[in-house]
């Protein structure tokens, strides 16, 4: 009852937030914008209270609620009882609304944004919040009560009982909420014809915040897949991974195209177009995943009504976005940029990132379309995506390495580009010579990674030597490029130099793996509250050093599900990765061992990327204050 009352109240407030700005009496008055801001804050407060009530219900294992009975178990840890709130469809939708309304409130507090723009943006955000309020009230109610209270809950999907997955949804939904702000800002900017430098500056702040959260969300998801699934990979081009990548690619393109708007006031259509596309792609992903069109751990229970409602929301906002885009009028024609200028490079970068997003989208939805139109069922897996997108990614890396050496508006290339070019060629030849088994593109990528590193350091050094003041945002940009170089190096080395082997190991028997001498000390059977564990104790020795590995297998009788808990130990930048398999008929255990030579580079690089985004965000806030 309490939950429903709070939800209905906040829906009403969201409705007011959406309608009132269109009422002349309100929008024309001096108190109007203030009222809308207050409404946004009140909606956030109401929906937040509903959310905390749901958390309370989960934490106290109140099994009279259907949602609790289906997704929680009274014996599980408090952390996973709470994360169970967003480990299901209804609760996660509520979480998304909480974050959307909170971020709307924060936006309303931004005094530097002109009052009328703030009000219009809050109106668009109100429309988004209202449509999801209705979605929750009508078909995704998390507060449904049962007539009979069951004795025990079904428990959370064991794969989701994990620290990384506890924070993964809140982070991704924050990214999605920030995407909504970008969408609203783009639509309002287009409608008012105000795509000026001040607009670009405001967009930049919010884009950087959004980029940080999306990057972190994707990195956490990837890290989870690496240690939890036990397949030894970190990117599988699985449909849901692909969909999460789409807004990230488009937002990255947006970040770069905003620099052009800020510096030369050209390419004004690109930025709002990208912001609108990114949000619509996120809505499309939500529809594809939650309607059950794509099966995954994110799909939860499938309900056709849900899909239709989400499709309706997506169509409405697509129409609204298109209407805003058609408002765009080209201003006086500006001079076309020279092909070797920084504008041209940034524009090409935008086109390339957008193309990658388009290809990934086509590859992800093509099987669905084909199945609907012809009934033919095919899969589009990793080989398609790597074959088609890697050449585009390579072009992006080349642009990154060359970008410090081109100038705005001018047709002047810095001489240093020839050094980097020569270095890149040398690095490529050296890599092909050292890594004879590698395919050409892997060598190209590694050479590109080294070149980006060199180019960025060279650029910073050149500026420091000339005793020029380097702005914080320039450091942020350099750090972002360096961290991408690190990620590329980690990804390439891991993809082509990893070692995977499956062994049969007996109690007190030994095996040799990549210079390590491994012995199985024992396998313990342990009963945990609501699952059974089989934990292996393995010692890996190499010279003096010895590493303990404890991979586990868990059996969840409630879900009739077996999961493997990998054990991963770091050795410098490398990982030794162990997965326990099944016990075979002659007392041996199957043991899968992986050696990931440079995987830590990938996680370090991803962490630095988020840090760089945060630095850029701080810099963009500072820039506003000083003006």
């Amino acid at each position, binding site marked *: 009852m309490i939950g429903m009352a709070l939800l209905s109240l906040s829906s009403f407030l969201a409705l007011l937030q959406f309608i009132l700005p269109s009422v002349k009496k309100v929008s024309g008055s001096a108190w109007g914008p203030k009222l809308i801001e207050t409404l946004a804050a009140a909606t956030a407060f109401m929906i937040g209270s509903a959310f905390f009530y749901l958390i309370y219900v989960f934490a106290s294992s109140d099994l009279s609620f259907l949602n609790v009975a289906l997704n929680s178990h009274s014996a599980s840890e408090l952390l996973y009882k709470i994360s169970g709130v967003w480990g299901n469809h209804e609760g996660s939708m509520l979480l998304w609304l909480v974050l959307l309304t909170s971020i709307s409130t924060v936006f309303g507090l931004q005094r530097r944004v002109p009052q009328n723009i703030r009000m219009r943006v809050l109106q668009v955000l109100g429309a988004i919040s209202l449509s999801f309020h209705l979605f929750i009230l009508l078909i995704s109610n998390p507060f449904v009560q049962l007539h009979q209270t069951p004795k025990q809950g079904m428990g959370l999907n064991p794969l989701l009982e994990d620290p990384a997955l506890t924070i993964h949804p809140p982070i991704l939904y924050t990214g999605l909420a920030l995407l909504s702000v970008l969408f609203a800002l783009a639509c309002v900017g287009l409608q008012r014809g105000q795509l000026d430098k001040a607009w670009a500056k405001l967009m930049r702040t919010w884009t950087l915040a959004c980029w940080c959260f999306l990057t972190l969300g994707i990195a956490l998801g990837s890290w989870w897949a690496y240690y939890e699934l036990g397949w030894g990979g970190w990117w599988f081009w699985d449909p849901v991974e692909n969909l999460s990548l789409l807004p990230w690619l488009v937002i990255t393109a947006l970040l770069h195209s905003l620099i052009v708007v800020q510096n030369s006031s050209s390419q004004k259509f690109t930025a709002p177009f990208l912001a609108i596309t990114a949000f619509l792609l996120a809505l499309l992903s939500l529809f594809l995943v939650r309607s059950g069109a794509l099966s995954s751990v994110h799909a939860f229970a499938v309900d056709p009504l849900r899909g239709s409602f989400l499709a309706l929301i997506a169509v409405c906002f697509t129409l609204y976005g298109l209407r805003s885009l058609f408002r765009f009028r080209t201003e006086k024609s500006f001079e076309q940029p*020279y092909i070797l200028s920084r504008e041209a490079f940034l524009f090409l970068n935008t086109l390339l990132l957008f193309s990658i997003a388009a290809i990934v989208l086509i590859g992800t939805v093509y099987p669905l379309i084909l199945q609907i139109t012809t009934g033919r*069922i095919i899969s589009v897996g990793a080989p398609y995506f790597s074959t088609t997108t890697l050449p585009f990614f390579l072009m992006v890396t080349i642009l990154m390495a060359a970008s410090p050496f081109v100038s705005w508006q001018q047709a002047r290339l810095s001489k240093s580009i020839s050094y980097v070019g020569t270095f890149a060629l040398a690095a490529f030849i050296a890599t092909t010579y050292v890594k004879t088994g590698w395919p050409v593109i892997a060598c190209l990528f590694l050479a590109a990674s080294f070149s980006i590193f060199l180019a960025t350091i060279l650029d910073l050094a050149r500026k420091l030597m000339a005793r*020029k003041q380097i702005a914080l945002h320039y450091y942020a940009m350099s750090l972002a490029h360096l961290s991408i170089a690190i990620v590329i190096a980690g990804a390439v080395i891991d993809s082509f130099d990893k070692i995977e082997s499956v062994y049969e190991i007996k109690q007190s028997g030994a095996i040799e793996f990549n210079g390590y001498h491994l012995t199985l000390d024992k396998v313990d059977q342990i009963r945990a509250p609501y699952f059974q564990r089989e934990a292996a104790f393995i010692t890996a020795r190499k010279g003096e050093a010895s590493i303990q590995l404890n991979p586990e297998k868990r059996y969840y009788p409630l879900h009739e599900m077996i999961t493997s808990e990998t054990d991963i130990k770091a050795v410098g930048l490398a990982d030794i990765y162990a997965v326990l398999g099944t016990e075979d008929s002659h007392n041996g255990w199957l043991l899968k061992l992986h050696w990931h030579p440079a995987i830590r580079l990938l996680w370090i690089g991803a962490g630095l990327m988020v840090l760089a985004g945060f630095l850029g965000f701080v810099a963009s806030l500072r820039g506003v204050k000083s003006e």
Partner: protein
Amino acid sequence: MNRIVFLITFLIHGTCVANDEFTQLTKSIYCPSCQGQVLDESSSPVAIEMKNQIQQMLGSGKSVEEIRQHFTAVYGEKILLKPALGTYTYPLWLAPFLMLGTILFIMLNRMRFLKKRNSVKSTTEGHV
């Protein structure tokens, strides 16, 4: 078209794909009982059975393509990671070329190619 796709695939995956027929097969076929997992990575009963079958078939001199066709016949096309090239997959494989063409077209149309000596005052340093 076939040749172009083959050439690009070769450049990207190169020798890593071609090293042995068994891995080539197990890395290009999904495990039918597990969600999105490749045969090579899976240790489910079905996957183990299929891997044994592959070994037997390779032993009896069957070609990679024949074995792939055998499994496609049993489990359907969805078992292949990489969809075959046919009229029904042309849009899929043409998409990247189309994107590349569009990029070239836009760049050629929107950019200037001649250097202009008396260009506007430099703003590079201003940006830094």
